């Protein structure tokens, strides 16, 4: 009757392995189904020229990081100096401002007309870039958050790694810290450049 002792041991070890793996997973990090697919299309106003709309086709040809952020996002503030450093290192970062006014819990966006909302958004973004510096090669503004839904955005900051052909290769959730860049992201960025 040796199996009588072996079976509970095997079950126990199985549970240990299951828990060891399971508890290491971060339930907040939802894998994106968009990896390996072309970056979804959108038409959004450009921060530098509000009257001009841009599509992702404008950035094709060279790889880039699409960085989703907002001025009300605390982690984005933490991330900003790192984006400045990356810009200096030659990383092409495209900014995607997400629900600058409507996403701000401290504001009641209902009280604003669309014009006033846009005006306030541009004001706040401008002040942010003036204070912390502008790490973006280009910057688009998604006031409603509709385009962000197509990218599966569920929080800020999120950063998409998009190759020269416009295909999403990776998605990083949370701020890019120097450690994360060094340990995980730098190699992915270099791989994107080699592919182009």
């Amino acid at each position: 009757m040796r199996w009588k002792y072996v079976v509970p041991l095997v079950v126990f070890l199985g549970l240990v392995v299951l828990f060891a793996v399971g508890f290491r997973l971060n339930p907040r990090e939802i894998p994106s189904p968009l990896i390996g697919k072309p970056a979804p299309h959108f038409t959004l106003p450009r921060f530098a020229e509000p009257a001009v709309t841009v599509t992702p086709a404008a950035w094709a040809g060279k790889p880039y990081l699409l960085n989703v952020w907002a001025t009300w996002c605390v982690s984005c503030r933490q991330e900003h100096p790192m984006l400045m450093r990356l810009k200096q290192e030659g990383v092409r970062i495209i900014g995607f401002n997400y629900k600058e006014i409507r996403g701000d819990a401290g504001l009641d966006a209902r009280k604003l007309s669309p014009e006033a909302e846009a005006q306030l958004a541009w004001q706040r973004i401008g002040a942010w870039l003036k204070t912390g510096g502008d790490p973006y090669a280009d910057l688009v503004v998604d006031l409603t958050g509709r385009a962000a839904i197509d990218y599966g955005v569920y929080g800020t900051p999120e950063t998409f790694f998009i190759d020269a052909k416009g295909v999403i290769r990776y998605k990083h959730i949370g701020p890019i810290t120097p450690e994360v860049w060094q340990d995980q992201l730098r190699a992915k960025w270099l791989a994107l450049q080699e592919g182009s």
Partner: protein
Amino acid sequence: MRRCVQSLLAVLRRYAAGRFRVDATLGWLLIAIAFSAVAQSWAAAPAAEQRAQPLHDPELERRALALGHRLRCVVCQNQSIAESNAELAHDLMNQVRTMLQAGKSEQEIVDFLVARYGEFVLFEPPFDARTLLLWVGPFALAALGLFGLWSGLRRRQQQSGVGATLDEAAKAQADALLAGDSPSKTETRVAKESS
């Protein structure tokens, strides 16, 4: 009316006499709960009203909410987008409404969200090779447990000898006991003492 006032006065007299303390505490507690409930509904109302945009067509709105209850809010993770007050949940709920209004089917809307947020948005995961363990696992474990219980009970039954055939002598003794014969009593006592 007069009786009502009288009984109220009686209650007040009892309270003043200090014979009513427990009930009074309970009363205050109930009042506090009622107040906090009202305060909460006041606090929550504007937030919900701010972002949800229910459809005018009640049937369409009902379908939208039913669908929303099947979709997980990716921000709060254990609430559906119909229940959640998260910004994104409202955006997604409004997206569901827009698509329903545009004549899209439930399946098309589910596919739309799965394409963007992955199967994580589904409260009910699809049945396929990857989710096989998830679907049949609990039933398999329950079956295994029942089988273990059954075989264990059977083994114990065999070991304790219940249901085993008695030899002739034992049977005769048992019959005698059942018939109420006294000699068996002494016999058992002797057996006990000797053992």
